[in-house]
């Protein structure tokens, strides 16, 4: 079930009404409803993968119980290893098996041999990368003592399967989310209204900006050998906004939806394209995944302690794994490595602590220096996005090579006016709202109800006018 579909528009109010008017007397009944709703939401795609999700989650539930109840460090370590193998094994099989088989066969051919690879044509379950990482964070946190293993199987199942964030994040930590299913929430009117605004903002980003950019991006990337450099540059830039609005739009709808049920999910994006440098970009982009890698991969490897070589190694490992997490294609590996090079390069050149506050936090316009910093960071990330979007590494290199030629200064053809207008409006709103939580986070109490509703209606109508065939979210493929 897609967030931007009529089925979800019917599903959500029904679940909301049942939640607050029928099932919220006890936390048990409430979790029952949320789990059932989540199963329906996920099973809408394919009920078979529902069994996979419940199966892997149940394995982790029992393994965490063993870890939590055992005082023997060896037993705890081995059981944790079992959880890692179980989760990563399932992920590897469904996501990477065919890729590694094909790559192995190709490398055999490269060295002069001949090997016919039999692909299993395995169907990738939606959201597998997200819920396996979420489940892993639970068992690891129990192992580390950050969290007690829960005996409430239903609360645990609700934590794993909670439908707003099940298929594309944010990847929640058990320490944040699980306790919210062990107590009854109280309905907060302001939180619910804010959640609704966030849903609207997320749909605007996804449908009006991302889906419009996608039309131009598909044409440009599909015909890149025929188009001018300026068009290719525009295509790369539009893809940067497509993936941002697609993914952050989904996260906004997920977080907003969760708020309707009294659940607080973590922020996943914080205006990444206003970043002044690469480390800041990674503090603002897909925050739930980057903090997951930081806490469960980078820091256990040593983090930024140790020699320069070890620190570089740690950064390379994290970005390589992050690239692989995104998909079974060498383009994602190169994307990850490129970002690692950026990150390492910045760390080697710049000393001192970067400003954690948003750019131009105390003035209206950015300074020239800030503008150059934002521009250069955006340029670097856009170059990396070309690998992310391309079918193959060769295509990406060809695309980038063709982007640098005298026709870079010509007028792009085709010239996607609608996409550029949508991006312009997005940037304007996000700039004005950069100190706030999201694009529609205004001081609404000062605005008369008629004016507020007019704004909401206009946004809804703009979203409806831009809806075509419901487009999948890009991160569903991960």
């Amino acid at each position, binding site marked *: 079930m897609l967030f931007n579909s009529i089925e979800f528009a019917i599903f959500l*109010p029904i679940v909301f009404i049942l939640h607050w008017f029928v099932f919220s007397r006890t936390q048990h009944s409430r979790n029952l409803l949320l789990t059932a709703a989540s199963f329906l939401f996920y099973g809408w795609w394919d009920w078979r993968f529902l069994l996979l999700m419940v199966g892997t989650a149940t394995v982790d539930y029992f393994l965490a119980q063993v870890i939590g109840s055992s005082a023997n460090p060896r037993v705890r370590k081995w059981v944790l290893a079992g959880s890692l193998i179980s989760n990563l094994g399932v992920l590897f099989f469904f996501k990477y098996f065919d890729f590694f088989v094909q790559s192995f066969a190709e490398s055999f051919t490269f060295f002069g041999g001949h090997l016919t690879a039999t692909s299993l044509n395995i169907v990738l379950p939606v959201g597998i990368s997200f819920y396996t990482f979420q489940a892993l964070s639970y068992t690891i946190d129990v192992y580390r003592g950050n969290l007690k293993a829960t005996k409430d199987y239903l609360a645990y199942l609700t934590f794993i399967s909670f439908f707003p964030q099940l298929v594309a994040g944010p990847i929640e930590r058990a320490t944040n989310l699980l306790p919210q299913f062990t107590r009854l929430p109280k*309905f*907060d009117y302001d939180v619910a209204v804010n959640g609704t605004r966030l849903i609207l903002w997320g749909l605007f980003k996804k449908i009006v900006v991302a889906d419009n950019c996608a039309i131009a991006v598909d044409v440009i990337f599909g015909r890149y050998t025929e188009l001018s450099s300026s068009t290719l540059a525009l295509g790369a830039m539009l893809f940067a906004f497509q993936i941002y609005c697609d993914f952050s739009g989904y996260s906004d709808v997920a977080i907003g939806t969760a708020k309707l049920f009294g659940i607080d999910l973590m922020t996943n994006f914080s205006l990444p394209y206003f970043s002044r440098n690469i480390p800041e970009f990674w503090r603002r982009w897909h925050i739930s995944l980057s903090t997951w890698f930081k806490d469960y991969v980078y820091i256990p490897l040593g983090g930024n302690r140790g020699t320069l070589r070890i620190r570089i190694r740690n950064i390379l490992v994290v970005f390589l794994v992050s690239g692989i997490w995104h998909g079974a294609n060498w383009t994602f590996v190169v994307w990850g490595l490129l970002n690692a090079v950026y990150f390492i390069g910045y760390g080697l050149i710049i000393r001192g602590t970067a400003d954690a506050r948003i750019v131009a936090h105390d003035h209206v316009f950015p300074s020239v220096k800030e503008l150059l910093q934002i521009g250069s960071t955006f340029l670097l990330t856009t170059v990396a996005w070309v690998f992310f979007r391309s079918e193959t590494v060769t295509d990406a290199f060809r695309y980038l090579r063709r982007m640098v030629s005298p026709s870079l200064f010509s007028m792009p053809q085709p010239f996607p006016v609608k996409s550029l207008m949508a991006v312009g409006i997005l940037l304007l709103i996000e700039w004005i709202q950069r100190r706030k939580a999201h694009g529609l986070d205004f001081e609404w109490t000062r605005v008369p109800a008629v004016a507020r509703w007019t704004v909401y209606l206009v946004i809804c*109508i703009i979203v*409806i006018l831009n809806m*075509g*065939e419901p487009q999948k979210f890009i991160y569903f493929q991960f």
Partner: protein
Amino acid sequence: MVSRYTRNCALFIVVLLAIVFGFYFTSKRSYQDDLFKFPSSRNILVAGDSRTALSINDTIFSRAINVSNPAELYVYTYAKLKKLLPLNPQVDTVLLSFTFHSLTELTAHWSADVSMIRERLPRFAPLLGLEEESDLAIAAPLTFFEGLLETDRKNFSNILSSKRLSQFGEIGIGGYNPMAGEMSDWQATVKPEKDADEKMNTPYGMQIKYLEKIITLCSERGVTVILFSPPVHSSNPRRSMTPVILKKSLPSVSDKILLLDYSEMQYADSLYRDYLHFNPRGAKVFSSYLQQNGLRPFSGE
């Protein structure tokens, strides 16, 4: 507090739906009458679904004008005829596509398929009356709503572009529709439809209703309706069932209405693109036959 929030949301949704529906009804463009006027030499109107859309080339069968449309339910045909007949008094015959599946649940997906309604409703909306819209909405409510939203989108962009149509074919609601293809290619890829036998035995009420309405409409205008079944490839096991289905589904009408059943007329495989439709070569041959022989009943020759 939750009641207040729910009430406000419900009110908002009502207002939004009122705008969506209101815009649908108020922004329906009317097609100019001159788009629907055909030359006085064309006294036969060919209407219906892809069976006639692909088989009758009206540049060859020159007494006819083909306004058929692939996957067209009779409700759309009825809406078209309501507009066409008063503007074309020279029309004395309507050749209406009729096949063994026309009145069965096998055609139900034409109203339930979202991509079809998204493509179709915006074009037909100006011709549909409230009764037709209600029937389509009842047949597949969510799908109809998606079609309604798409109609709003198309109408909005039409208002912005103010493009003027200059001929019937530009509306996109019918016309001879040649589709290339070879029987052998189709046979290599075709998969049997699930539950086809069950659907064949289940009548589809909306199709029956609007076939009767078409017959009544034509009768009121003194126009002869002829149910017309173009040739069906010999590999189709149901090709002889057309008169049987008619008698079973419309017993009160089947004796009074003429069925021109060419289903069992034999043509070479190379003239078909699949077991129900001609390719352009087949359409040319069949249309030439009709041009030379007129609307003669097929008696197994």
